[in-house]
């Protein structure tokens, strides 16, 4: 369901492309295939690594660590767990909603979600292959910063 919008947009673009220029469209599809091959090995490695991490840092563990009144400790746990774990957002957001229902605080869940989406310690090796060490590390530093700012504001108003 979540990928639906993307399929619709790309489907329309592909049709427009096909009616405008069949040759170019064929070239684009060849390019898509080649590009997929160039990137897929890194992706497969990441998927396996994600699978291993998900065994160690499971949603159950996360639920247990975010009990009621976990306070500043809970926030730190959320940020760190988010940074080292790897789960699709359609699992993470319902998990976050569930945690709040079960008594976890908004700041803890905010830190976890934001850090999960933006900070990638496990995928840092892969990121460096694309953007080099300096830019990748800086991007992650700012993702940590973005998460902390988000937590501080949420802590102040909610």
């Amino acid at each position: 369901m979540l990928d639906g919008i993307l399929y619709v947009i790309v489907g329309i673009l592909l049709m427009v492309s096909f009616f405008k220029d069949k040759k170019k469209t064929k070239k684009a599809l060849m390019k898509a295939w080649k590009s997929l091959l160039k990137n897929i090995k890194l992706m497969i490695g990441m998927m396996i690594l994600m699978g291993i991490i998900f065994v160690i840092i499971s949603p159950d563990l996360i639920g247990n660590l975010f009990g009621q009144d976990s306070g500043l400790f809970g926030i730190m746990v959320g940020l760190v767990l988010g940074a080292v774990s790897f789960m699709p957002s359609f699992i993470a957001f319902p998990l976050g909603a569930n945690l709040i229902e079960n008594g976890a605080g908004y700041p803890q869940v905010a830190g976890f979600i934001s850090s999960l989406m933006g900070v990638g310690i496990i995928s840092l090796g892969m990121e460096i292959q694309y953007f080099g060490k300096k830019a990748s590390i800086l991007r992650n530093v700012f993702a940590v910063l973005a998460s902390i700012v988000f937590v501080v504001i949420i802590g102040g108003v909610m």
Partner: protein
Amino acid sequence: MDFIKNNKLLVVSLIGLVVLFLFSVDKGLEASSNAIDNFKTVGMVLPPIFVLIGLLDVWVPKETMIKFMGKGSGIKGGLIAILLGAVGAGPLIVAFPIAALLIKKGAKLSYVFLFLGAWTSVKLPIFMFELANFGSKFTLIHVSSNLLIYLIGAIIIEVSLKSNDLTEIQEKAERFA
């Protein structure tokens, strides 16, 4: 040896999986089934993402990319970067090949990092879910605070990269896009 050198991530993850199996067969099986689930999830978004990359590559010449997202594109370039990030689907790692193509085509680096920032904070489908489950206050603070920091970060990253860093990034982009 070359295979190991060229596929470090794959080799490390496979060794990790073997170690987990040695530690506990159950955990190893669990990790394998998680990995298969991940393949299914990410596999769903890969076809449209890579078709989009192919179409962008063929239909958008370098000059056009520079005009819309290059050095002189101004606020327009930033808005396009955010929009591109917002319609994306899948984990951040799926955005890396798109970013590589943008770099190859001459997009301004800070916009490429803003695109990655938007990808991690304003995904449209997730945005809807977030609004419904966490409320508008939470969601708006999330999106605006994250985007602001990612914008500042994107500018600082671009400024702090030296010419040899830039050459390295260009070379890497050529390899993946």
